[in-house]
């Protein structure tokens, strides 16, 4: 007899456990307020990413098209995987002296791991992380960027 | 409609599948490369042949199924008339099922229903 009771109690408990699971999914099926989906392309304008989110490295420029990068290559050295290439040139200062200055800040977005080490290393705060994340392109050469804007200059007073 | 509908349905099936496949043959672009025709096995070449003997643990189930299937076939005519035929039919089927159930118990006892 114990065999039979066993048999039926197994059936009972199994069916119960299964029904409980179905109850749960049934609950979610009928309660649409539990849905947590965000509509990405529509919510693009209202999408608020946390300000610390690291999407890419950018160089800040002010209205006069000036940046703060002195071309010291500290960021290039700090970067673990050679994402940054600083090309320097020699500017003639008003005093007529030659001075090393930034020519091109080459940034390989396709290599960057968003580790923030370059930003930490920069002594002048010339670069920062930006929240842009829509980097999809058809050709990866487009991901190599030049961060300093054309004709931009070093900001006054930044050493 | 009568039995002719079966023919219609069969033709429909052939037309549907054939038409679809034909359409796809016409419209789909194709490409060939040496690896394309090989069997897919998680992205690595298959080892050995795929058509090999295969130790099917299930053939006993298939045998048992066959026997129960025959039993089922005999049950259908019985089921249709049992309501009219009364207790006699009931008794007959009880005997019938009982004998089969013996076999079932035997299979169970012998472990034939266990996985091999």
């Amino acid at each position: 007899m114990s065999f039979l009771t066993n048999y039926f109690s197994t059936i009972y408990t199994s069916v119960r456990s299964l029904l409980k699971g179905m109850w749960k999914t049934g609950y979610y099926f009928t309660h649409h307020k539990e849905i947590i989906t965000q509509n990405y392309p529509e919510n693009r304008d209202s999408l608020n990413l946390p300000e610390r989110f690291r999407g890419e490295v950018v160089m800040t420029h002010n209205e006069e098209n000036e940046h703060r990068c002195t071309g010291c290559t500290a960021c290039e050295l700090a970067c673990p995987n050679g994402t940054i290439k600083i090309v320097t040139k020699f500017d003639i200062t008003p005093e007529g002296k030659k001075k090393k200055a930034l020519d091109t800040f080459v940034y390989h977005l396709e290599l960057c791991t968003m580790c923030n080490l370059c930003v930490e290393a920069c002594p002048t705060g010339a670069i920062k992380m930006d929240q842009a994340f829509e980097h999809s392109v058809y050709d990866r050469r487009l991901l190599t960027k030049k961060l300093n804007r054309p004709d931009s200059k070093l900001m006054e007073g930044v050493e | 409609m009568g039995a002719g509908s079966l023919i219609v349905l069969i033709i429909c099936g052939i037309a549907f599948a054939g038409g679809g496949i034909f359409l796809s043959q016409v419209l789909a672009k194709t490409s060939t490369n040496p690896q394309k025709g090989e069997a897919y096995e998680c992205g690595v070449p298959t080892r050995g042949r795929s058509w090999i003997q295969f130790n099917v643990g299930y053939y006993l189930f298939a045998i048992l199924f066959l026997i129960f299937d025959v039993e089922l076939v005999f049950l259908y005519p019985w089921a249709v008339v049992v309501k009219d035929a009364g207790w006699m039919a009931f008794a007959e089927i009880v005997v019938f099922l009982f004998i089969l159930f013996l076999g079932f118990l035997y299979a169970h006892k012998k472990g034939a229903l266990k996985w091999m």
Partner: protein
Amino acid sequence: MDVKKPMDPFPGQVHETPGGGILTGTLDDVINWARSNSLWPLVFGTSCCAIEMMSTASAKYDWSRFGFEVARATPRQADVIIIAGTIVNKMAPVLKRLYDQMPEPRYVIAMGACATSGGPFFYNTYSVVKGADHVIPVDVYIAGCPPRPEALLHALLTLQVKVKSGAPREKITIGEISK
């Protein structure tokens, strides 16, 4: 049909049936519309980016809204490989094989720095493929390590634009985009 720059206008908005719901477009338009809206990805993730790919599938980002959720485990039924993660030299033949075994038309998305260029493992490693496009042709690249789920969605939408345009992979070159 001219190829739009992926960013503007945003690719996600073009979603009407061709011809405003009535199938008046040419056959090609219909086909491209169907293809672009039914990109079934192959379940292919090698490392960290695969987790973000899962997040994209998950409820919060839900790529099923675009019809991408039918992730197939076999390349025979998939339309797009999302290379989510690093490709190393040992894996490269496998990837090639998977790509080869896919039926036409097939698309490839390189997700993350690793698949795009080798990323974090570009220098001083002896076993990493420096970009999946050395192995198979890639349609869309996403930068990021890992890219956000939204970024992956963006990439898929970008791919949709491309598929809709009907232009073959070779045609969309750097020159045509910048034009």
